[in-house]
């Protein structure tokens, strides 16, 4: 069974039961996430620790708001590596983030397709 990338119960609590707002946030995520993801990828590939910190931090905030705990933790790990200048560990950590992020994107797209009928 596939693990839920988003804790929908937690997300509903966060939006105080406002399903329209929840869908609004998910739509925003769909629009915003690819650019943020690409920016993080470029920062990792260029081994630019300060950019990795800022991009990973922004993603962490976005994913936390969405109650996407595992993805938020993976971006937090990249932020931590950036702060500690552990550049050699960037590729492995990003690969882990990428795997989680792809599953998250797939689940969000499926959910949106379901609710939009």
């Amino acid at each position, binding site marked *: 069974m596939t693990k839920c990338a988003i804790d929908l119960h937690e997300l509903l609590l966060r939006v105080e039961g406002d399903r329209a707002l929840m869908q609004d946030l998910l739509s925003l995520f769909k629009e915003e996430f690819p650019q943020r993801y690409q920016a993080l990828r470029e920062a990792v590939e260029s081994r630019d620790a300060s950019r990795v910190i800022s991009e990973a931090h*922004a993603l962490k905030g976005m994913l936390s708001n969405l109650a996407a705990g595992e993805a938020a933790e993976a971006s937090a790990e990249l932020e931590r590596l950036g702060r500690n200048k552990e550049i050699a560990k960037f590729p492995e950590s990003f690969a882990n983030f990428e795997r989680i992020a792809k599953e998250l994107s797939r689940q969000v797209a499926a959910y949106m397709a379901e609710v939009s009928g």
Partner: protein
Amino acid sequence: MRILIADDELMSRRLLEKTMQRAGYEVTAVENGRLAADALCKPEGPRLALLDWIMPELDGPGVCREVRKRKDQSYVYMILLTSKERKEDVVAGLGSGADDYLTKPFDPEELKARLRTGTRILDLEDRLIEAREDMRFQATHDALTSLWNRGVIMELLARELTRSRREAKCTAILLGDLDHFKNINDTYGHLAGDEVLKETARRLVSSVRSYDFVGRFGGEEFLVTLNNCDPAFGLARAEKIGKIIADQPVETSAGSIAVSMSFGLLLSQEWGYLSVGDLLHEVDTALYAAKAAGRNCIKVAVPKGQQDAPFDRSTELMRRRL
């Protein structure tokens, strides 16, 4: 209550905006710290703020520092939103002037509870300002008539004389005293006397321009300064004021009471650099002369040596001079 939300991340901003609107706040949302600081530093800006820690242009602690630099404006209650949880980060955030901080992702109930704390503090500030303003009013105004009190009207007169000398303008000083006020008190009682004083004050204020000053000088004595007054019209304006005082009786709880006022008038530009005390002595002498001349009239104080000199103003003004 208005609240400012500053967060560069669109989802976070949307979530905060909706949560706050649902809680009844009027929300202004901006996407960077610079815009936040500018909005909060405006005189009528929001007094509650939720600030993301890391933002472009200016970060959350930077916004707090800018807002705290302002003086003489209402307090702004600021909460930093952060995913930073290390003790030194919290200390730095609060050290920048933030009132509180909240860790992201926030719980809506906790956020609203913390904002209620902020609102309580702002309410307290409002009550303290109101109390201070009441005390300031009481310290500067006469309790019965709400006119400037003696100390303040003398200060205002001194300031106005300095200004009129600098600008080669004229200030007309009018010292008025209600006629037969002791009789009013004795006949109708002190409460009716107070009502007469209050109504006289109201009539005086209504008879001058917004930039003239009216103060209670003593018991039934009132001091009026007609600022930037054309000397050719000083007497005419004083007469108009006297007419407004005496035209209608004052309706009091003890009955209708006829009132009139005697005035001493002094036009500052004729007196060179005499002190405020000396000018008041001269206008008081003129008032005394008006009383001696039968009351309900105006006498103009004229410097010695000019009393017999030819005047370049109307013969009417000359005729009425002391």
